[in-house]
């Protein structure tokens, strides 16, 4: 009995330690992000604004220019990480991430249609992006569903749908006038340049609401790791809970994609990095959220301040992602050669 307590406490304590450490790093990076930029500020000025002691232009720079972008990086990173953890757990495959199975391309497609055919406006773009993500997810789900959902089939179908959507997106861009196409193409690389207060706060609100309810399914997610049959036999309403989880993940990804475009790698890597740090079986949701926030915030600071020209954060994450993907493929290949289960 003590053993079980100890095992639970040990994993719980490690996850708490990982969360706290990553959260401290996020805070530190956030303060740096508020401090550094084209408009020079002293460090004590940033603290003064945060403490409510300094107003005027300094306050505008910190709270209205820089804070939305920092908040977006944190919230979006967490959202992508959790969405990735949901897909990877449901499919029991570390390659199943929303950017690989075509959700991001679906959102982009919906957004392009809203922009090019319906004229745009942020609300319309958001709806278009959300609808695109949902339709893509539904299409993959239905095409891959056959007496249950096989993770591998889900991914292969997702990659196919993703390619078709990418082609559609290119075609849509070619039809657009130059100015619209440039705007859309920049957005399509995944960037937080467009993260202004007007769009960030609604998206962040949606994301926070979803992140708060996601733990309701964490026990069911843990059962799904054991296989659909085991999960069902142990009392999970597999089809219902999985549909709810996919919906949560799709809305999370769409909320991000609407504002920032398709940002790759975070959803793929954050859950796996968090799992290795926590050393828990399965993907730890809370740690994944904080690690995701750290990854995206860190990547965005690199994209803005470290690289001489300002590049979209998506370029940084995709570069990291390529390296990570190679490592993961090699690692998985070795592991599956050794054990059949």
């Amino acid at each position, binding site marked *: *009995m003590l053993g079980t307590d100890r095992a639970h406490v040990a994993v719980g304590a490690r996850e708490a330690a990982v969360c706290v450490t990553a959260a401290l790093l996020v805070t530190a990076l956030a303060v740096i992000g508020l401090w550094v930029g084209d408009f020079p500020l002293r460090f004590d000025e940033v603290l003064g604004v945060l403490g409510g002691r300094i107003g005027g232009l300094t306050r505008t720079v910190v709270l209205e220019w820089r804070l939305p972008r920092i908040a977006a990086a944190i919230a979006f990173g967490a959202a992508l990480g959790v969405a990735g953890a949901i897909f990877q757990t449901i499919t029991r495959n570390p390659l199943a991430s929303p950017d690989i199975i075509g959700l991001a391309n679906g959102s982009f497609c919906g957004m392009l249609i809203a922009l090019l055919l319906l004229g745009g406006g942020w609300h319309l773009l958001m709806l278009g992006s959300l609808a695109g993500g949902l339709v893509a997810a539904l299409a993959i789900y239905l095409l891959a569903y056959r*007496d249950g959902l096989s993770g591998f089939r889900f991914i292969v179908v997702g990659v196919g749908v993703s390619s078709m959507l990418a082609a559609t997106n290119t075609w849509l861009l070619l039809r657009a006038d130059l100015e619209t196409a440039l705007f859309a193409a920049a957005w399509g690389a995944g960037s937080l340049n467009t993260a202004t207060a007007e769009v960030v706060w609604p998206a962040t609100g949606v994301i926070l609401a979803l992140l708060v309810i996601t733990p309701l399914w964490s026990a069911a997610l843990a059962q799904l790791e054991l296989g659909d049959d085991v999960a069902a*036999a142990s*009392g999970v309403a597999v089809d219902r809970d999985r549909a709810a989880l996919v919906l949560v993940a799709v809305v999370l990804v769409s909320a991000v994609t609407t504002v920032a475009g398709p940002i790759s790698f975070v959803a793929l890597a954050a859950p796996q990095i968090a799992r290795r740090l926590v050393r828990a079986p399965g993907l730890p949701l809370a740690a994944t959220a904080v690690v995701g926030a750290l990854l995206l915030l860190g990547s965005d600071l690199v994209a803005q301040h470290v690289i001489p020209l300002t590049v979209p954060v998506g370029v940084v994450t995709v570069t990291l992602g390529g390296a990570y993907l190679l490592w993961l493929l090699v690692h998985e290949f070795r592991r599956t050669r050794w054990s059949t289960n």
Partner: protein
Amino acid sequence: MVDQLNARLRAERVTLRYDHRTVSEDLSFAVPDGSFTVLIGPNACGKSTLLRALAGLLRPAVGRVLLDGSDLVALPAKERARRIALLPQTMAAPEGITVRELVGRGRYAHQRVLRRFSRADEEAVEAALASTGATDLANRRVDELSGGQRQRAWIAMVLAQETPLVLLDEPTTYLDVAHQIDVLNVLHRLVTQGRTVVAVLHDLNHAARYATHLVAMRDGRIVAEGHPASTVGTGLVAEVFGMPNQVVPDPVTGAPLVVPADTREPAAG
């Protein structure tokens, strides 16, 4: 015959289908309470499909499966899982999970939405570990275990669910013979403790020794059922498996022992 039995779990005229492939049609079957029921039959005869339907994992296209008189598909998943447990053929152990954590996952149906591991959960886990002889393995990682040990861990997870009905799909396949007997003894002990066990087995002689109720299937139909002593005979084995054979008394227990006829080609020359 079915109606004379005391049976909490029964299938009534079910048609079982995957996609559009019909496995069984108009099949009725009752699991006698307190029995060790064993399903046998050639590959793809519908044993596993029937087991999945009895566990509520496969919804019959026609007919219904009744648990304590109510339709299984209408029961909430957690309520069903507090009465029926199933060890399926395919399962996945997350990398790095310990035996104790795996067994704890069997408690899902007894837990609230935001999981709290209660004293009852702890006790069920310990009892399940003890009755499968897996207590010593509790802190080992599942991916480091031998096949037999791993199977015992999975069975312990199913037992931790504390259900009166325990269903197992080929629990002894891929195990060496000593571990097969180990697992069967664990199941036998469950039956003596008052649980009802239903298992799909491949080994006819194990089935004949351990079953209190034997069910022989072929082509999605039940060919014969009853106590092994009155069911297993040369004719039945030939009919179900299409294999010439002799049935003799098992020298150890007296149960029917199936011995395949010598169908080798005569040596050349």
